[in-house]
């Protein structure tokens, strides 16, 4: 079972739900070591993404089959124009690079890995951050490594995403003891230790949504499937 554009849309909608649910938690994490807006920023962005997906669903189907990359590109440009802050350009670049390597109606496990690799490369190059700096890069990096291993073991799309999501979750937790050296938390110096990085946590939510979307089929909440 390869993943298609409908999966990508389910992924994004589930992400929006997960972020909305975790909004206050993410904001509280950011309040501790940042400026207390991460949950609000992402929620604003993903709500806008959902609104655009709804608009697109209401329009007549365009000619030609929709690709995974089409969906991810819509996410990228929407986040870039609605989120702001550090996470807007970073997530925006992640989805943009991911869209570039997924311009096909369906993606198989190696292509899923390539999507994650592209996202990581986007965040890391845009933010000039490497692993261990207590940023979302930590979560993306762990996800990519785990996804590569799962795909190398011949795992399915779901296996790959399950591994990625679990690794991102673990990596987010593992940011707690770190001292931040990038982003706003770095201003705190040693005082940043002892708190989870909000961007790493939101990355874990994003990847958890990807796995859940792959596990589930189209849902009634999805306008495309209702049409």
């Amino acid at each position, binding site marked *: 079972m390869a993943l298609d554009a409908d999966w990508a849309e389910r992924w994004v909608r589930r992400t929006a739900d997960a972020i909305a649910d975790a909004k206050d938690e993410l904001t509280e994490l950011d309040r501790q070591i940042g400026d207390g807006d991460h949950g609000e*920023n992402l929620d604003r962005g993903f709500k806008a993404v959902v609104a655009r997906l709804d608009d697109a669903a209401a329009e007549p189907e365009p000619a030609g089959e929709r690709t995974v990359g089409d969906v991810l590109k819509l996410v990228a440009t929407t986040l*870039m*124009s609605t*989120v*702001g*802050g*550090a996470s807007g350009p970073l997530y925006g670049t992640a989805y943009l690079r991911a869209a570039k390597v997924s311009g096909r109606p369906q993606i198989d496990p190696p292509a899923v890995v390539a999507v994650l690799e592209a996202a990581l490369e986007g965040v890391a190059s*845009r933010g000039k951050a490497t692993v261990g700096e207590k940023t979302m890069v930590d979560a993306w990096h762990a996800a990519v490594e785990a996804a590569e291993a799962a795909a190398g073991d011949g795992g399915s799309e779901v296996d790959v995403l399950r591994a990625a999501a679990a690794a991102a979750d673990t990596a987010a937790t593992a940011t707690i003891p770190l001292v931040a*050296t990038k982003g706003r938390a770095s*201003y705190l110096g040693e005082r940043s230790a002892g708190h989870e990085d909000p961007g790493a946590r939101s990355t874990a939510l994003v990847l958890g949504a990807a796995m859940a979307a792959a596990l589930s089929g189209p849902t009634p909440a999805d306008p495309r499937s209702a049409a």
Partner: protein
Amino acid sequence: MKKLLNDPADAVADSLAGFALAHADLVRLSPAPVFVVRAGGAVTGKVGLVSGGGSGHEPLHAGFVGDGMLDAAVPGAVFTSPTPDQILPAVQAADGGAGVLTIVKNYTGDVLNFESAVELAVEEGIEVASVLVNDDVAVEDSLYTAGRRGVAGTVAVEKIAGAAADRGADLAGVTAVAERVIANVRSMGVALAAPRVPHVGRPSFDLADDEIEVGIGIHGEPGRRRVPAADADAVTEMLLTPVADDLALARGERVLLFVNGMGGTPLSELYVVYGRARRLLEERGVTVSRSLVGNYVTSLEMQGASVTVLRLDDELEALWDAPVNTAALRW
């Protein structure tokens, strides 16, 4: 949490709408994408100046749009950098054919969003230069940080670069002056009580009644260290000393001394800080030849203040003195 706001989601839009109505002689508001541009639009042949950043620091930046300072300002959500699709049209609106300088406070979000916008503007054939303001000595500029933050020193950069542009300097010239201000301006701030972001509903950090945060930024981030509350003289020394040391001020030099309120501290207290900071500078043999005291780069209703020192020379002093006519700075 009580505030004079309607729906917190509309806080920035409602405020900007009122601002644009109150200062229609100076500015015009683009509602979507949101930016503020001087009433007359770009001045042909003059280098355009654009700045921006998260909201919540009023009067920064929109309050400095007008003659002799900024041509456009781009406000983001509260404490959140604006997006490239706001910044780009602001740059376009500020372009009078002589190019545009963007003045960016050094925060990852501001840097990334302005970077994207500048890339797009350059693609559209606008000549754009950028400077990064990073005056906050609370943060070391090292491998282990995102670099020093931009705080109250931004006012000096915008004022002086604005005067240089007004005088007819070209883009390289205006940029060089702005860089010279940045190289010679340093700040440090303290918070006595945290701001409350409208949609968050509680203070950005929690401070006991006998604690203060030293080395705070302007986004409600906690500071570098939490210390016991102290009197104004002692606190002022905590702010002025690292600033003066970092600038390596020598006897006989002259400076602009700027005591900036964070929004919730009475003006009277800012003058107490000013008096002490001035005495400390004079003890170092430094002359305070220009002064600014007031709430210019705020953090909502945060209680506290920052001390900014700008090393002056004849040119910077003359540019500081040049006429300015904006909502928040006028002479």
